[in-house]
């Protein structure tokens, strides 16, 4: 059973379109992170959210942590080919010091 479910699993869009990817769980997390991984490389941390309802912006990327701290979303405005990659959410539970990774959303932005 996957503790963190990401949707969609795969997304192919045209350059300039907007998109949202989701990270959902039935468990509460003390914090949640988003990583982007390009082919042949390790994941790179984009953002960490720690407060229920928190919204963080990173240029064209907007991250939101759910009020109940069970889910998160990543919204990309005017997607560019450079946004292509595997987006992974990862959560940290209060009872553990180990990150739990989601299944990932593979994004392809076509020029």
């Amino acid at each position: 059973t996957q503790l963190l479910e990401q949707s969609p699993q795969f997304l192919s869009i045209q350059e300039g379109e907007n998109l949202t990817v989701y990270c959902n769980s039935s468990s509460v997390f003390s914090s949640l992170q988003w990583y982007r991984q390009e082919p042949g490389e390790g994941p790179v941390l984009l953002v960490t959210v720690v407060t229920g309802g928190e919204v963080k912006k990173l240029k064209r990327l907007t991250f939101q942590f759910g009020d109940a701290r069970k889910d998160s979303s990543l919204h990309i405005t005017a997607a560019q080919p450079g946004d292509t990659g595997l987006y992974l959410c990862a959560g940290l539970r209060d009872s553990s010091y180990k990150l739990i990774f989601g299944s990932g959303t593979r994004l392809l932005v076509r020029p």
Partner: protein
Amino acid sequence: EADIYQTPRYLVIGTGKKITLECSQTMGHDKMYWYQQDPGMELHLIHYSYGVNSTEKGDLSSESTVSRIRTEHFPLTLESARPSHTSQYLCASSHRGSSEKLFFGSGTQLSVL
């Protein structure tokens, strides 16, 4: 920019060989991790360490072993490689008290024939 290095980047070997995947970081991080990842899939934690002489098995059972003799070095060893070990292996580190913000290496893509 993260300073964590993995070697080799790619490794193709025959069944039964012993291999060691190297991971080093120059950030002085206490915590280090090994993850296994199949193409485009989630990461599975196979080993972690919270400091020198501390190693623990992760959530995914693995036949590999690790050691942490120095803070900066966290090698992973497979005594007898099998085709089922074919995967990407990612090393990561984090600073104590950093809410587990991980810095990843570029990974080792292992293929066992």
